[in-house]
């Protein structure tokens, strides 16, 4: 939360004094200012204003569409974070003809008057043709502290017009870091499977569903999963009656086959060296294994006549949560990655598709108690099981963003199966693509 100030120098002295005193007792206070305490349980959204991006292009290059897109993506990113209360532009009273883009050219009283605490202003040039930028689009964006009347951060970007969204996403990441001290996920990607009339294909897209790219070509493809470095996708593909395991480099398109026999639900270890998966061809029954990626050697994790499927690695790679019906209904268990020490975590309903938060503190999963599935979260020891979504349709297959705060999941609440993203507390649910089996990139 923003610290309200009296006069500038008095508050500066006080701030320094507090920092020095506190840092003696608590060495984890960062030297930089934290505008928004993202972990606060009483977090109030910070009011922010975003003006129209001003077109500084030559007359023949001017584009209203670029202005609209830049602002739309900015607003969409800010909304996704859940940290801001965006003031509608109809409420802005600043005269855009007279106001500028540097702090001294802005009358911040115009912004305080409408209740704003933060302000974003930007400009762009289509076909800039300058020494610094010879590509199709140059964008400048500034974030201001309205109360302190100063620039918090300002950046310029040079790219192709097709990279417009990416430019804004980069600035959104910067905003997150400056205001909260945490990395943003605005450049992250989603991967998912989606049906066509004849097939089920694997796609990836931006975190908000834009820029969808298909990486498979026919047949039934399933269970896409990102590598820890975010460059490769694992998936199974039905070829010759086996759901074979493949990995594909999303930059080069190079596809490598890893297994000729049917694999179900592969998951890449966060340490990068192993894949957890289910196979039934080895021991005649669906068992969990870990496969060493270099040697392709398998280590068996489960040994019973029931179904063991859908592994989820802990972020330190030492434990794996998974689904088993050994107790009758499907329940979630945790096993050490060497196969030892199996513990049961759920005891009610049917429980499936666990996903371990990259922060390590929570496991999300899908539970059905009387018909439809909802997303739940719990601690890794099974305590504090809490329902997160409560739609009457099926919400399944959660996948965490790397910030441990957002979850993608599949739901048929809108009719056909679609991917939704939300905050981990169940708020801010937005549809981003049609499909299933979402995997959020690191």
């Amino acid at each position, binding site marked *: 939360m923003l610290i309200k100030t009296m006069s500038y120098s008095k508050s500066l002295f006080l701030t320094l004094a507090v920092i020095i005193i506190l840092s003696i007792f608590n060495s984890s206070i960062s030297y930089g200012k934290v505008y928004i305490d993202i972990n606060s349980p009483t977090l109030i959204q910070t009011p922010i204003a975003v003006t129209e991006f001003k077109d500084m292009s030559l007359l023949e290059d001017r584009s209203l569409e670029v202005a609209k897109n830049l602002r739309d993506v900015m607003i969409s990113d800010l909304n996704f974070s859940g940290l801001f209360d965006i003031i509608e532009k109809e409420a802005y009273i600043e005269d855009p003809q007279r106001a500028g883009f540097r702090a001294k050219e802005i009358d911040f009283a115009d912004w305080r008057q409408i209740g704003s605490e933060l302000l974003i202003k930007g400009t762009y040039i289509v076909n800039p043709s300058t020494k610094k930028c010879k590509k199709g689009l140059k964008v400048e964006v500034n974030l201001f502290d309205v109360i302190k009347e100063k620039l918090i951060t300002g950046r310029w970007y040079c790219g192709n017009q097709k990279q417009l969204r990416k430019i804004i996403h980069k600035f959104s990441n910067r905003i997150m870091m400056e205001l909260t001290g945490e990395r943003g996920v605005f450049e992250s990607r989603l991967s998912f499977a989606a049906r066509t009339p004849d097939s*089920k294909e694997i796609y990836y897209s931006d975190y908000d569903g834009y820029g969808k790219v298909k990486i498979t070509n026919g047949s*039934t493809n*399933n*269970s896409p999963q990102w590598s820890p470095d975010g460059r490769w996708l694992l998936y199974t593909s*039905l070829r010759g*009656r*086996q*759901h074979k395991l493949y990995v594909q480099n999303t930059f080069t398109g190079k596809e490598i086959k890893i297994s000729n026999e*049917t694999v*179900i*639900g592969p998951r890449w270890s966060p340490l990068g060296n192993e894949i957890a998966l*289910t196979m*039934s061809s080895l021991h*005649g*029954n*669906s068992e969990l294994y870990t496969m060493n990626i270099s040697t392709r050697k398998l280590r068996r994790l489960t040994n019973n006549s029931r*179904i063991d*499927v*859908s592994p989820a690695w802990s972020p330190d790679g030492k434990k794996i949560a998974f*689904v088993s*019906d050994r107790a009758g*209904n*499907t329940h979630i268990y945790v096993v050490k990655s060497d196969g030892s020490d199996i513990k049961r975590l759920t005891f009610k309903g*049917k429980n*499936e*598709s666990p996903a371990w938060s990259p922060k390590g503190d929570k496991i999300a999963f*899908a539970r*059905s108690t009387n018909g439809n*599935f909802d997303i739940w979260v719990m601690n890794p020891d099974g305590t504090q099981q809490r329902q997160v979504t409560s739609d009457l349709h*099926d919400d*399944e*297959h959660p996948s965490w963003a790397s910030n441990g705060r957002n979850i993608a999941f599949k739901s048929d609440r809108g009719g056909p199966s679609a991917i939704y993203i939300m905050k981990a507390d169940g708020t801010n649910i937005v549809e981003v693509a049609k499909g*299933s*089996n979402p995997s959020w990139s690191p």
Partner: protein
Amino acid sequence: MVFSGCAKMGSSISAGNITEDGVLENSRGEIITEEHVRRDIENALEELEKIYSSNEENHHDSMNEKAILEERASVLKKVNTMVRNTGTLLPVFFDYDKHSIRDEARGTLKNNAEWLSGHSSLKILVAGHADNRGSNEYNLALGDKRAKNVLYYLRDFGVNASIRTVTFGEEKPNCFESTETCWSQNRRAEFAVVAAD
């Protein structure tokens, strides 16, 4: 009535009329009896075996290979359509979230086993399916278990034919509604002929 015609080699599926009384007639106006049906399938299977065995010599000619594969595929399709339409190898169905063979399924599997024992040169595929409730990964595992349980049951009946299993999970449903009627149709194991020795 004795059936005197034969299905032509490489011909498309035969068709005929349905009379006012609901009786099936073939294209020559002869009433189709069980015997007709049996002979049609036998002919198609003979054709299949001929194609699989006679074309081994032509294996290295790549232009011909494409034609061979297409011909095989078309005959297989005909055989499987007949298998379906005549109820020769009927599918079996399963209870929700279960992969054990139901009592109602035993009769079907016994019939299938008997037919398979009489046609041991055929290669058979058993495909396991699930309804769309629950995660699709769990359903792939469930479909796999259903297909395997059918396979074990047939082996217990002494079927020696080459049988492979595949799971389709919830990926290839017969119907798409969220009703018990539709779900129960999707929880199944199906048979298909995939080759002949």
